[in-house]
């Protein structure tokens, strides 16, 4: 949780501390200790994920991108007990009795992380019965949790692993609502229950949305908001209520337990991270000010197609932009999208994360990052490969609050690792092997190391290379 403290504004530090001791013993109507609910270790629906068995493995003679901007040629990576044990050059010592993979001609990266996915809550098959991402019945639904929609049998999870090397992802509610609900961070491991996928210790996020979607969805129902000013008004009114709820909690006053308010109080305490869908530069600036008005900080703007227009501001405020490489033109607020969004943000020193928001592009997030790099180069901004890899590994982990555990190949971190059969920034590269917590969960050479979801079993194409 060291991450969340960083995101809390100083003024909230005292509040954060005081919150932790407010658990009441007064029955269902008493307060529910919001911060405790926000902290995944104590939260209900807790993760039951345990690392699968792995064997001590070293990869040698490989080109290694460490996820934090480092690159080692002719590297050795040693993992054991589910952790990265050591990383270094050819001189790195490895025990004699372990499996050694010759990585000559291959590349190693941390497991790829997608900060914006709807796998599980908009799974395939994309039938109406599976539309579980938008509780589009009220413009603010901070009470819903994406994990309660996730269908673990979504075949998209295994595609993301096999073709994209995805080892962790944040599944968010959709953007119909101003406050869409809590996100959930998952390990990309096949499981029968969502609890079996939940990333242990990952903080919650709150999905918020600016702009066209909320005002369209609710305006078309003849209710507020129907304009951008309506969006802001509803948001601010809701934050005022949240502040009051939190004030009572902090003061130890009796409150009726309210799921939505628990989430919002968790945001105000700095325990729950704001992931704000927002396209236009002018709206992002307003949202930053709204955060200041109510004492919270946006962790990342998602989609953020106009982030390049306010790169200095985003760098100054320490807000990440989780963006596509090149999507544009699908709606009015995406009209000014340019493929050099990442390039300009990088040049301004702002945090860049490449995301997918897509069940297909999550399978090639490495290629999306490579596109942004190529467009940057065309604009005269040269960005090293190792930095580009950080956009889909460490930077994503940082913005999801899990960078202390994964996102880079540093000793002691989870052994979430992808071995690629070539440079992952090339169109010709594919994952050769994928480890999650040191367990080999995909091996291109072994059809038995390829997950097949229950949905696919007994169907055309079962177990195919996909």
């Amino acid at each position, binding site marked *: 949780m060291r991450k969340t403290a960083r995101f809390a504004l100083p003024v909230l530090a005292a509040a954060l501390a005081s919150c932790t001791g407010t658990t009441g013993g007064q029955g269902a109507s008493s307060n529910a200790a919001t911060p405790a609910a926000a902290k995944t270790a104590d939260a209900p629906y807790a993760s039951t994920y345990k690392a699968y068995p792995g064997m001590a493995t070293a990869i040698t003679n490989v080109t290694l991108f460490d996820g934090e901007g480092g690159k080692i040629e002719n590297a050795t990576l040693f993992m054991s007990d589910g952790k990265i044990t050591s990383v270094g050059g050819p001189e790195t010592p490895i025990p004699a009795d372990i499996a050694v993979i010759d990585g000559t001609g291959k590349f190693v990266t941390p497991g790829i992380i997608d900060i914006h996915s709807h796998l599980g809550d908009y799974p*395939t*098959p*994309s039938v109406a019965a599976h539309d579980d991402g938008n509780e589009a019945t009220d413009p603010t639904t901070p009470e819903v949790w994406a994990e309660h929609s996730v269908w673990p049998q979504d*075949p*998209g999870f295994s*595609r993301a692993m096999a*073709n994209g090397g995805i080892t962790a992802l944040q599944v968010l509610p959709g953007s119909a609502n101003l406050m869409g609900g809590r996100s959930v961070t998952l390990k990309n491991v096949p499981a029968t229950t969502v609890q079996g996928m939940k990333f242990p210790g990952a903080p919650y996020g709150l999905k918020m949305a600016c702009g066209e979607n909320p005002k369209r969805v609710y305006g078309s129902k003849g209710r507020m908001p129907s304009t951008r000013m309506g969006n802001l008004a509803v948001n601010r009114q809701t934050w005022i209520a949240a502040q009051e709820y939190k004030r009572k909690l902090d003061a130890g006053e009796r409150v009726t337990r309210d799921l939505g308010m628990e989430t919002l109080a968790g945001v105000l305490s700095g325990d729950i991270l704001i992931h704000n869908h927002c396209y236009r530069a002018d709206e992002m600036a307003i949202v930053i000010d709204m955060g200041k008005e109510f004492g919270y900080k946006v962790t990342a703007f998602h989609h953020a197609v106009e982030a*390049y*227009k306010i*790169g*200095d501001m985003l760098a100054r405020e320490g807000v990440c932009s989780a963006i596509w490489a*090149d*999507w*544009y*033109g*699908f*709606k*009015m607020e*995406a*009209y*000014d*999208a*340019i*493929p*050099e969004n990442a*390039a*300009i943000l990088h*040049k301004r020193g702002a945090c860049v994360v490449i995301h997918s928001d897509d*069940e*297909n592009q999550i*399978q090639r997030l490495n*290629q999306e990052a*490579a*596109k942004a*790099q*190529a467009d940057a*180069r*065309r*604009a*005269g*901004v040269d960005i090293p490969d190792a930095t580009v890899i950080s956009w889909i590994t460490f930077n994503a982990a940082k913005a999801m609050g899990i960078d202390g555990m994964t996102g880079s190949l540093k000793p002691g971190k989870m052994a979430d690792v992808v071995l690629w*059969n*070539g440079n992952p*920034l*090339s*169109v*010709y*590269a*594919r994952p050769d092997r994928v480890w999650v917590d040191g367990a080999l969960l995909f091996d*291109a*050479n072994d*059809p038995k190391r390829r997950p097949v979801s229950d*949905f*696919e079993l007994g*169907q*055309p*194409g079962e177990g*195919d*290379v*996909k």
Partner: protein
Amino acid sequence: MRHFAKRAPKIFAALLLTVSAPAMAETVAIMGGTVVVGDGSAPMEGATVLIRDETIVAVGANVAVPADARVIRADGQFVTPGIVAGFSRLGLIEVDAVAGSNDATGGRSGFSASLDVAYGIDPSRNPIAINRSAGITRAVVAPNASNDIFGGLGAVIDLGSDASPITKRRAFLFVDMGEGGANAAGGSRMGSHALLRAKFREAQDYADGEDDFDDGLLRVEDARVLISAMNGDIPMMVHVEGATDIRQVLALKSEYPKLKLILVGVSEGWMVAPEIAAANVPVIASALNDLPVNFAMRGATQSNIGRMKDAGVIVAIGMIDDRDAHQLRYTPQYAGNLVALGRVPGATGLTWDEGMAAITSVPATIMGHGGKMGVLKAGARADIVIWTGDPLEISSTAEYVMIGGVEQPMGNRQERLRDRYLADDDGALPRAYRH
């Protein structure tokens, strides 16, 4: 527009002033490049492409270059046919979600087969210039089918910076016989197949001058188009994904033997590839579909195109319902991904040469322009791209684009926005004054 024309003269002047052919006779020699013919053959290093006016007149290592030819050096660079987007809605849409700028769907008009994309294509729409600068030079453009199985008439267009985008009008009739078509026809395949046959029968009645022609089922304008399709004068491009749907469509040829079928989408094509090949029906397939988006796509795999190719199917890459109005620039990346499959154990992809062909000569041939489009051969239209590197690699970009012998402007609106914001803010005046 007036506003833009003033501010972006480089981009729009050509559009306003020129037609697709060069103003005066000119001979151009592109020399020294690694020339990819586009027909699946291996690249030729250090070759010359000789162009006279809008046509390629010679290609090879030993081409005599006339003294008056304008020479463009491409030493060590790939020189390829312009990329042909095998399926798109390019030029029909500026912003998908802005109805007034979206001309892809005409179903509510009451017409169907006669809806002609030629009236909806606007070369000033920004996706044209954006995709042109990425090396896309021609595109197959289809309408959406929404309220009927028959979406209307598609076209082949060029992406040239001029006012004449249409290469071939009424190039095909677009029909949806998959889930979408079933939905449009009352909710089932029974409905879509009944509707197709009933409309064909009515069209025949109309052609035969029968008194009982029922214009409640079929308008005269639509009937005329269906007759052309039934007679094989206009190919019928049918969207299907599932193996069973594919078989049902192939079977139409036994009832309507003159139909010239083209299949598009075809995610489960690999499961019926021998039948498609035997029917000699070409396919414009989605390259990377590998998810069971619906129950007709349970067998979807990225190996689909490679397996169909191996079974003898003529198959090009298209992007139906995949950002098909904006991101045709993904086409080379998709081909590159199929090449990548060659290194994945158990997968079937394309060779690099086949991958290039699947986005140049093959779609052109399927659309009836074999030897004239999508190839660097004598007699073909001079649609040529010079690349900074391997055209299928993400790090490469188009550096020079010629369409129909005319050198194209490489700028676009996205680049203008980029340049406005790339430079540091000097604080002297707002960025609005940078143009």
